[in-house]
């Protein structure tokens, strides 16, 4: 063995302080990945200690090593099959008996091992006195005492690790009594090379077969020659049941507990049996029958605002910074395809990746505090009743709530759910919580098609629709697709304690890096692709020569102004008559002022008409009654006409370009698909573009309805939408519901891919939502038409 590089596996119960020790040992030198083929996260860290390079792998926290949960299978497989040089089992000294139960099971895997008595200070305070020396002798492995929170004992631990690597594997063995031991021997006789090639210790395989362990049974089934042993095991289990009246698994577990209890009794002096701690006092308030829910909701309100309101500030700053960068690149580069790709495609795509970073940082700060302090378990305790009805776990509530802000951090937040099935269902229904990017689309459509009194109700109904759909789909997935045993809700409520700043920072950093690295690249690639499809081909056969038409408008202007103003006044330019130039300038100011005033006002409203009247009056009063004033008005009129012509041409050109882009062509091809929903190709293109980010739907609609820049004025788009003969309030509502339900945006899909570690689920999330969206939109539109809406 090369003693210079040592692999250390870090195991222990949940909440035993394992991760804190891991962070102290490795600092920031951590790497997060997944175990092959499963969604369980694999964290490894590195540390150099006295000429040794240590690779420390933080195994998932488990209570036991049965095959009931993936985490447990992953843990034991790693310990046995990956052959780490040493296993460090972290024990919570204040809960030593239960922690020893796991330690004993790890000992049975027969690897070199060190025990860490963590949280020694807490145990001492509770009056628990541990005779570490005697404990070490009883189980035959070295023991180190540590206080993870205060980083004490770390050097001791490292020294012991380095010293113990060469030592013999632990040879601890439990005597399970005649009934079991006989059967172990009997199983040994049935073992052949197939069984031994699994790589697990012989005795351990025998015990697992008597326990009817799913994973081991599966492994033997896949091996030729395993069947014979399995048949023997089944028979032995049956005879055990007949002879003792109980099942072997329970008997073995009980025996293990007996042994642990004995060791514990010999090595530990305990205080009073049931303690009332400070934690219980805090809990009396935080999970109080009446106050618990309001406090919880208040806390959620705070977290939500922290993440999405405060997060919006740096988010905007990033977007601004990138638009500056875009301008700068725009000045530095010659015009052409590369420039467009860089500015609109790449910088735009990077913008959509980076704009999530502030909210992810803040969210994981909040989650780390909630988890570390121990409140997360209480939140699950409070909400479990509600979520259980939906078929989910109490812990699903927080991610779902965050979904109203943005699905990306919400889905990343599902990490707090241990059960993979609960997690997957939560991930799949989170996009139905209508995220904030969809809000601008709803408000646009609401304002364009519903009266002010109705708009609020319509908007509210869309949100409620999403929630109800999430509940229905969750139940459906639970019943038909992701069936199986429901995860028992037996959850430890860890004592409250102050979260450690280092842990929080590491947690924030690790999640953000993971997001940028694993999801960022996908988001960037797809954003660029969608940009390409909506912008290319660049050389479009335009139906009209827009450049010539623009030049024509300019020529008309020059000709008219010469004929109607310059010739009669015998001048060649405005400046030849300073009074005229001045009046024209004043009128320009009045017009500009008007444009600002009505930027967000729709044309058919009273406010707009009033402002227009005021403008006319102001213009006439500026003109006065002089002859020159009339000429000034003429100048203004002509330049308005020219500007209007320019704008209309520009918008028509943009419209035609999008119409003839690949996306536009696709939209037309797909039109028959959306016609039954009352939608046309324009909506199809917008929905397609909305896949890059839902708010893009608004700007795409603006381009396609030829109304120019929506950032400056959304009222024009509303007017244009309202004027579309294909649109009606029913179609608008159908469109809103479709946008609510159809495929999550690319960022969400990328995060789903990352969190489920599978393209299959990411694609499923995109397809099943779009299918549901179509069906429901169809029902709403066709149903609405039957009722004559």
């Amino acid at each position, binding site marked *: 063995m090369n003693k210079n590089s040592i692999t250390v596996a870090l195991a222990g119960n949940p909440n035993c302080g394992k991760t804190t020790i891991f962070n102290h040992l490795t600092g920031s030198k951590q790497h997060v990945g997944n175990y092959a083929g499963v969604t369980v996260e694999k964290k490894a860290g590195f540390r150099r200690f006295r000429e040794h390079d240590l690779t420390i792998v933080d195994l998932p926290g488990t209570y036991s090593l049965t095959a009931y949960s993936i985490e447990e299978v992953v843990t034991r497989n790693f310990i046995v099959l990956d052959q780490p040089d040493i296993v460090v089992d972290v024990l919570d000294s204040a*809960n030593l008996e*239960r922690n020893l139960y796991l330690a004993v099971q790890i000992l049975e895997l027969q690897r070199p091992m060190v025990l860490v008595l963590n949280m020694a200070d807490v145990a001492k305070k509770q009056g628990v006195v541990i005779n570490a020396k005697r404990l070490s002798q009883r189980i035959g492995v070295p023991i180190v005492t540590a206080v993870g929170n205060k980083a004490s004992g770390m050097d001791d631990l490292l020294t012991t690790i380095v010293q113990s690597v060469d030592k013999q594997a632990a040879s601890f063995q439990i005597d399970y009594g005649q009934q079991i031991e006989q059967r172990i021997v009997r199983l040994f006789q049935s073992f052949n090379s197939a069984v031994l090639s699994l790589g697990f210790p012989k005795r351990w395989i025998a015990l697992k077969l008597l326990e009817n362990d799913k994973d081991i049974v599966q492994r033997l089934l896949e091996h030729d020659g395993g069947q014979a042993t399995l048949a023997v095991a089944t028979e032995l289990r049956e005879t055990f049941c007949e002879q003792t009246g109980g099942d072997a*698994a329970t008997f073995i577990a009980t025996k293990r507990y007996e042994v642990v209890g004995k060791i514990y009794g010999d090595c530990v002096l305990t205080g009073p049996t*049931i303690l009332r701690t400070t934690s219980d006092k805090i809990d009396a308030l935080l999970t109080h029958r009446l106050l618990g829910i309001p406090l919880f909701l208040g806390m959620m309100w705070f977290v939500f605002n922290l993440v999405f309101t405060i997060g919006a500030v740096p988010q905007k700053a990033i977007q601004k910074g990138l638009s500056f960068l875009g301008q700068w690149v725009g000045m530095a580069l010659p015009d052409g395809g590369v420039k467009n790709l860089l500015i609109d495609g790449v910088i735009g795509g990077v913008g959509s990746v980076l704009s999530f970073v502030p909210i992810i940082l803040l969210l994981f700060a909040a989650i780390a505090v909630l988890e570390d302090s121990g409140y997360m378990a209480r939140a699950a305790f*409070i909400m479990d009743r509600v979520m259980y009805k939906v078929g989910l776990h109490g812990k699903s509530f927080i991610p779902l709530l965050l979904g109203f802000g943005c699905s990306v951090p919400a889905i990343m937040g599902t990490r707090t759910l241990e059960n993979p099935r609960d997690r997957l269902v939560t991930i799949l229904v989170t996009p139905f919580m209508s995220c904030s990017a969809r809000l601008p689309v709803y408000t646009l459509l609401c304002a364009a098609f519903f009266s002010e009194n109705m708009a609020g109700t319509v908007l509210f109904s869309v949100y409620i629709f999403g929630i109800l759909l999430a509940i229905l789909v969750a139940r459906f997935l639970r019943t038909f697709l992701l069936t199986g045993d429901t995860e028992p*809700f037996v*959850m*430890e409520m860890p004592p409250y304690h102050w979260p450690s700043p280092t842990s929080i920072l590491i947690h924030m950093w690790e999640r953000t890096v993971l997001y940028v690295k694993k999801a960022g690249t996908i988001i960037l690639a797809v954003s660029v692709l969608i940009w390409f499809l909506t912008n290319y081909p660049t050389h479009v056969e335009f139906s009209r020569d827009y450049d010539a038409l623009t030049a024509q408008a300019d020529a008309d202007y020059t000709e008219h102004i010469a004929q109607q103003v310059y010739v009669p006044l015998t001048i060649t330019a405005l400046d030849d008559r300073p009074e005229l130039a001045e009046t024209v300038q004043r009128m320009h100011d009045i017009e500009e002022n008007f444009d600002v005033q009505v930027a967000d006002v729709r044309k058919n409203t009273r406010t707009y008409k009033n402002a227009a009247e005021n403008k006319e009056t102001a213009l006439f009063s500026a003109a006065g009654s002089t002859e020159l004033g009339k000429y000034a008005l003429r100048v203004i009129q002509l330049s308005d006409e020219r500007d209007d012509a320019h704008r209309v041409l520009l918008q028509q050109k943009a419209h035609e370009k999008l119409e003839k882009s690949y996306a536009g062509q696709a939209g037309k091809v797909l039109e028959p698909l959306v016609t039954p929903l009352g939608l046309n190709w324009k909506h199809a293109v917008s929905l397609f573009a909305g896949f890059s980010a839902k708010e893009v739907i608004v700007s795409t609609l603006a381009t396609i309805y030829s109304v120019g820049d929506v950032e400056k004025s959304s009222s024009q788009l509303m007017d244009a939408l309202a004027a579309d003969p294909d649109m009606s309030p029913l179609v608008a509502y159908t469109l809103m519901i479709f946008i609510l339900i159809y495929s999550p945006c690319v960022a969400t899909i990328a995060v789903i891919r990352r969190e489920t570690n599978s393209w299959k689920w990411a694609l499923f999330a995109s397809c099943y939502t779009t299918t549901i969206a179509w069906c429901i939109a169809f029902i709403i539109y066709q149903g609405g038409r039957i009722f004559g809406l």
Partner: protein
Amino acid sequence: MATLLSDLLPGQIGRVVKICGKGPIARRIFDIGIVPGSLLEVQKFAPLGDPMEIKVKSFNLSLRKNEASFIQVERIAAETDCPA
């Protein structure tokens, strides 16, 4: 007299007699540290009535009433019930 843990009220103490069943629920209860002989005290029920919180030795657990009904206990007079 054996009762079910789910029938105990907040403040009541019981000693585990038996964990019924043998599925994942029973195993999980076992693994987390509730075994025959364990002393446990019901702390409270969640604001909506389920799950419940119990104290075992020096740690607290929350479990649904459904899960708690797998645990048979015998009631023990709480220390506070006894006159000093």
